[in-house]
């Protein structure tokens, strides 16, 4: 594995019965980069995310995540197939966090609670120390609350801290989902259409925040997005999928001028932004 890469996807193929959602997909995500995954609707982008984050077991191919602090690289498929304890939650613990195309918040819990659940593995889960209110437990809980408020400030949600997640306006729910993903302390955060349904001002604001996450909080971002100006503006590397296959990859200029991309987008429909 190239030490400059955080994630290496090789020959990923995902089949659902007869449907081939991803066919021989390979790409890299460099450490500390903002990488975008684009393509028309139904191209298989979300399926790639589901494979990366361990929700689907890839039919073929490998997904390697660089090891943390000099450890050996991890293979996502291997984490899933561990006997007895294997599962997608291990992928999250390895440092890949994600958001969902259709927001999945804990709607009937408060905003802070959403962020505390995300820190589950960093808190003191011992029932006894919690019931007795030991110092260790109280300290961990206080730290968790502090961390939650830290990310609320970063995503500009502090005044909503004590509201129900489900009653926030749509744009704020999207930001809360990103904050929640960040609370797990990830190395790679995968955002599935974070700007979908936002107005232009909110989109610009979101673009700024994503860059801020990468620059100030040292997290690598992998992003699915339909809004071309947003994608071209913030990403260093773009991978284009169509019909489950990678048709182009490179920096924004290269991708913009690639004939394959132009045909895929203009051939698919007349709208330059695809069917957003």
């Amino acid at each position, binding site marked *: 594995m190239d030490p400059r890469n955080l994630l290496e996807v090789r020959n990923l193929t995902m089949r659902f019965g007869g449907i081939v959602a991803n066919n021989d997909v390979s790409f890299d995500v460099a450490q500390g980069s903002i990488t975008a995954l684009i393509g028309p609707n139904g191209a298989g982008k979300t399926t790639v995310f589901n494979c990366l984050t361990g929700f689907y077991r890839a039919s073929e191919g490998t997904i390697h995540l660089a090891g943390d602090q000099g450890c050996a690289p991890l293979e996502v498929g291997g984490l899933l197939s561990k006997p007895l304890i294997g*599962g997608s939650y291990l992928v*999250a613990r390895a440092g890949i966090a994600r958001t969902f195309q259709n927001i999945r918040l804990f709607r009937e819990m*408060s905003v802070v*609670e959403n962020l505390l*659940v995300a820190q589950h593995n960093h808190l003191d889960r011992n029932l006894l120390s919690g019931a007795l209110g030991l110092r260790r437990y109280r300290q961990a809980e206080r730290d968790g*609350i502090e961390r939650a408020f830290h990310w609320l400030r970063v995503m500009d949600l502090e005044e909503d801290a004590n509201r129900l997640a489900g009653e926030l306006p749509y744009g704020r729910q999207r930001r809360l989902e990103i904050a929640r993903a960040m609370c797990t302390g990830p190395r790679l955060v995968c955002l599935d259409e974070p700007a979908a349904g936002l107005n232009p001002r909110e989109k610009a604001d979101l673009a700024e925040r994503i860059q801020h996450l990468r620059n100030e909080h040292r997290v690598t971002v992998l992003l699915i997005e339909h809004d071309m100006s947003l994608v071209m503006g913030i990403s260093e590397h773009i991978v284009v999928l169509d019909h489950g296959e990678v048709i182009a990859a490179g920096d924004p200029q290269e991708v913009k001028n690639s004939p394959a991309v132009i045909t895929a987008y203009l051939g698919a429909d007349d709208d330059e932004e695809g069917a957003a």
Partner: protein
Amino acid sequence: MSTHASPTFIRPLREAGVTFVLALIVFGPISGLVLDGYSIEPHLGRPLLIASIVAAGRLLFGVLEQTPFGQKLLARNARKASGGVTVARGDEYKLLYFVVPLVIAIGVTLPFVANKYWLGNLILALIYVLLGLGLNIVVGLAGLLDLGFVAFYAVGAYFLALGAQYLDIGFWTALVCAPMLAACFGAVLGFPVLRMHGDYLAIVTLGFGEIIRLVLNNWLDFTGGPNGASVPAPTIFGLEFSRIAKQGGTPFHEFFGLEYSSDYKLMFTYLVLLVVVLLMVRFLTKLRQMPMGRAWEALREDEIACRSLGINHVIVKLSAFMMGAMTGGLAGVFFATYQGFVNPTSFNFFESALILAIVVLGGLGSTLGVIIAALVLTLLPEVLREFADYRVLAFGALMVLMMIWRPRGLIRPKRPHFAPEV
């Protein structure tokens, strides 16, 4: 729904007609034919009367629905139905400093003023509170539908009865060990089935509950089968609550030079039970703000999101299942002690359904709601003794009314308030 100024009667009338026919079909065989000795007597008036009442209710509802007042009422209900969960402001706790000591004081004085009959009812009510709290963890917090909860209740009760018979254990040992054993049963059942969802889980747990009951019923040599098993009286510091010492100690009343009365045993059971319930309530209140409790609720809200956050959903579900089972086992010990005797008929499906009703009516996830529902559903039938025959009917009617009035239960839980450190 029509928005005309004056309500139309045609549709409500038609609906009421259909309701009348349906009610006739439902109530006809139940109340129209009365078994008298060996013959069946027709009482056709009764189903007609009941069906007319139901149809009149439907007509009233249909007309009210069209008036502005009715629509306002419906809108308010709809708002309540969707969610109704709120976040605490963070200053509600002041009231608790007053209410909690008051409730405890009343709880402690009750056994000294209540007669034997009511003391027994209170014990049963508290047992159901405990059962409700246990099932509330599984169904209300973790969102796992468990229709066989009574199995763990039976495990607790039979552990004391059979343990006393074969291993010579007493009340206190059972109080510690039975919950653990019940939790083990929970784990054994839970591990293979918790990968299932919703309906499948409900069916498997339903089966498990029946299996336990059938085993208790049919394993004559070990459990005593339908004849049940007797349970020794509890002891305190070696003093027995029985007329003559059977376990080698001194009877409680002799030690203190009192007349023998079985009230002492009931009082003792009640007080220990009260302490256990209070501790349990305190623990559960804390638990809801602990990582494990939060993970349970998060799992109920969205399992996929939980997995994406690195939460091992199987372990979290298993812990909820075990914690619920443990509480059920604890309740079983008290039930066995109170009755002095256990047999399998106490652990049939109706019992599971009753506990589930307590949790649902109380408001899934709300500790206070579950306590109120348990007290109401167990004490009210005793108050209305004369109507005992109609208990199940009233129960059904209550369920229907609640589903209309408060589909999400009596009390919706409040989310805790958090503030950053300054």
